[in-house]
């Protein structure tokens, strides 16, 4: 508690923020060519300079490589036990911000492994599950301190997850009488479609307007992106067809393991893709979906915007900071792999004005590496979050 108060005090007073000069053998900006022998200057929590040479005017941190803080759009942050809304299939107006446990140890896990910004979403057990928020992974344990963007996306889910929701989330017996969720893929799609038809009807008849149709109207106007989870081919297809049917301007398909089977459909519909973590065996274990190694490379080549995700794993070999490496094993270029964990996800949820690349004026979220980023033989050795040093790369750090 004392610590939280201290942290809050620190955040409340920007004058406490330190000036840093991060020098790296290579600076990967994610907004242009990498800079050999460059620096990133940080003042008052913002990036104030990026260039070649040694820079100056602050405490010096040195490392082999520096990249922007990583961004995970599929992070599975803990929302506690009572996380499945049973009252309806489309709790569209609910906001996950009300349920997030900011005291969870998992934030630290993400932060120290280089993930500085995440999209926290309602879970995937409702067809239209509510609104997600974009947060920083560190800072004081209050929403104000961490919020990057409120109402960032509307969460949707296809496939077996919402259809399996007519069971209690924990334990085997129903814990409530509100069991009227769809139990098939047909039902899931119908619920999705009906919600949007209602919205279209409401646009012509003011009496039919509700809070929920207002949210969906923002999705239809392109103000609010929609994140549709779909692991298997048929769910990726359904997402694309729904996007085309309703002319939804901004959609990304989350956990789209089998997107490699339908790249052209994705291109045609204009949907972006968030890929689940790589598996050496290819099998994801969800909905029978198989993700080929070259999925990211293939989608990139076809022109689909991709982001990678760590999906909240505790396995140190499978976290987001290793995922671009696996995508590179499948043929993705380094630059595209870097973009897929930085600027691409930032754009997908509309926070690229603040994070996602190393450019002057952006938030000072930096990841420091001891070797070529994303290789298994490299590690994240330092992290700056809003200019605050949260993982110290300097040796003999009080150990």
């Amino acid at each position: 508690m004392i610590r939280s108060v201290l942290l809050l005090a620190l955040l409340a007073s920007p004058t406490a923020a330190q000036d840093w000069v991060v020098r790296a053998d290579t600076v990967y900006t994610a907004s242009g060519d990498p800079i050999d022998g460059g620096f990133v200057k940080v003042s008052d929590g913002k990036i104030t300079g990026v260039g070649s040479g040694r820079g100056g005017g602050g405490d010096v941190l040195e490392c082999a490589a520096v990249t922007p803080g990583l961004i995970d759009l599929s992070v599975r942050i803990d929302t506690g036990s009572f996380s499945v809304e049973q009252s309806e299939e489309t709790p569209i107006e609910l906001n996950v911000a009300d349920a997030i446990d900011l005291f969870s140890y998992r934030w630290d896990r993400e932060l120290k492994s280089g993930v500085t910004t995440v999209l926290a979403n309602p879970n995937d057990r409702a067809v239209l599950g509510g609104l997600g928020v974009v947060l920083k992974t560190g800072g004081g344990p209050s929403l104000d301190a961490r919020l990057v963007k409120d109402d960032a996306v509307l969460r949707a889910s296809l496939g077996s997850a919402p259809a399996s929701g007519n069971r209690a989330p924990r334990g085997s017996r129903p814990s409530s009488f509100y069991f009227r969720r769809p139990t098939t893929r047909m039902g899931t799609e119908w619920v999705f479609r009906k919600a949007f038809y209602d919205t279209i009807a409401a646009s012509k008849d003011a009496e039919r307007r509700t809070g929920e149709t207002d949210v969906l109207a923002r999705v239809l106007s392109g103000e609010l992106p929609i994140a549709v989870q779909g692991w298997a081919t048929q769910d990726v297809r359904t997402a694309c067809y729904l996007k085309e049917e309703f002319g939804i301007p901004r959609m990304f398909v989350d956990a789209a393991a089998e997107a490699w089977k339908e790249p052209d459909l994705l291109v045609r519909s204009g949907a972006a893709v968030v890929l689940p973590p790589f598996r050496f065996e290819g099998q994801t274990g969800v909905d029978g979906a198989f993700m080929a190694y070259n999925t990211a490379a293939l989608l990139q080549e076809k022109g689909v915007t991709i982001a990678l995700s760590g999906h909240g794993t505790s396995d140190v070999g499978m976290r987001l900071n290793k995922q671009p490496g696996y995508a590179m094993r499948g043929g993705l270029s380094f630059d595209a792999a870097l973009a897929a964990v930085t600027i691409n996800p930032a754009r997908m949820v509309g926070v690229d004005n603040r994070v996602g690349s190393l450019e002057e004026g952006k938030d000072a979220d930096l990841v420091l590496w001891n070797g070529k980023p994303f290789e298994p033989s490299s590690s994240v050795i330092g992290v700056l979050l809003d200019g605050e040093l949260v993982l110290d790369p300097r040796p003999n750090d009080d150990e």
Partner: protein
Amino acid sequence: MIAHILTAFALFGVADDKIVVEAGRIITQSGPDIVDGVIVIEDGRITEIGPADDVDKPWDAPVIGGPDYTAMPGFVEAHTSRGLDRPNESLDVAPFLDVRDSIDPVAFYFEDCLRWGITTVNVQQGNNCIIGARGMIVRPVGLTVEEMMVRPQHGLKLSASPKSGKSRSTQAQGMRRAFDELRRYLEDLVQQKKDGDDFARREALHQGRDLEGEKAEGREMGGTAWKVDGLDMVPRGEIDEKQEPLLELIEGRYNAYFYCSSPMDVPRALEIARDNGFLAKTTLVLHERCWKAADLIAEAGVPVVLDGDQMHIERDPLTGKEIETFVPGVFKDKGIRFALSSDNTDTHSLWFQASLAIGFGLDAKTAMDAVTQTPAEILGLGKEVGSLEEGKLGNVVLFSGDPMSITSWVEHVVIEGEEVYDRSKDVRNTHLLEGTKPPGSTSAEDAEEAAKKEADDEDDED
């Protein structure tokens, strides 16, 4: 599927007695790297290795590799139960069993071994036992266990962690009782001999056991721990086969692979090994949390195989924060010899384990030794495998680039001078990399159209 396996893996049937492996860089593990090197393998062993200019290549030997490849010694899996049909036996104490009867030569695991460059595998019974079966060292090629065999009857599996359904106390009691029973059995046997009782001999004859040659002779009990006097009176063939493996463990014939799932199991394992005189032949197979017993392990001087994850994660009870401990780093600091194992992830890959360890701060030499030379020494094969030297077995892996990089692939594997894996012919690898497009999907139709167009274009050219 069998046809695919045969295309990709069946080359070992037509062995040449010579092969030349060329590589832009040879990582020998035992000495400095060789730039633009050549390895000559004859009759399964390396006869020459060195820079291209210094090595006489036999004119009639086939050549694989080239300047773009990096050569490594084949990786050595120090301990696994994965090639077994079923890894565990329901009997608590069953050292008379042999994994040889349970190894499945067409298990996917062995195919994966080649895909990842593992050329020597120590197969032991699973950890769910008190005293398990005798293990076996194999190479992951061959359609029969005999073809795969490198060392039969290698090692005995023991577990200090409770077999399912047991408490730690019953587990400890079970271990002690096994050796107590052995002692009582041997004492009875000697007494029977002294009494002129011929029961053991008649039983051996009835069971058709070997009583000729060495087995007709009696021998003093070997080993350093405890002894039963007068065992020289009993011909070895008369000793019950169910008891013999434990006696031979005490006498030093077998390596012991002792599993511990918790640091609290480590002192028990060391005690059993010490009391029965096989500590010097003991290797601990450890879950990652066992790093907490590192001081005890260092004091006992036994090597370890890391069966769990490299990073041990626990929650601080006061702050609730996660504490990460890099386990191989602890072992290195304490001077404990350790082998990494691929059992701990779904990668099946020792190459990846070594690379990950480097990322966490282990020096490259120790990390790469932990998947080559160290496991070779643990298995008693230090003179045969684990490094590329003249006289050692010709087990070579050719990588497309730096073996520790995520973008490198195992392109060729040579085991004892025979090329047993070629990535360009590996159908499953292609499936993992590119997937198999389902018929009817737009992408599959595109591919068909493209293929058709290409064929048409070729027709036009004609």
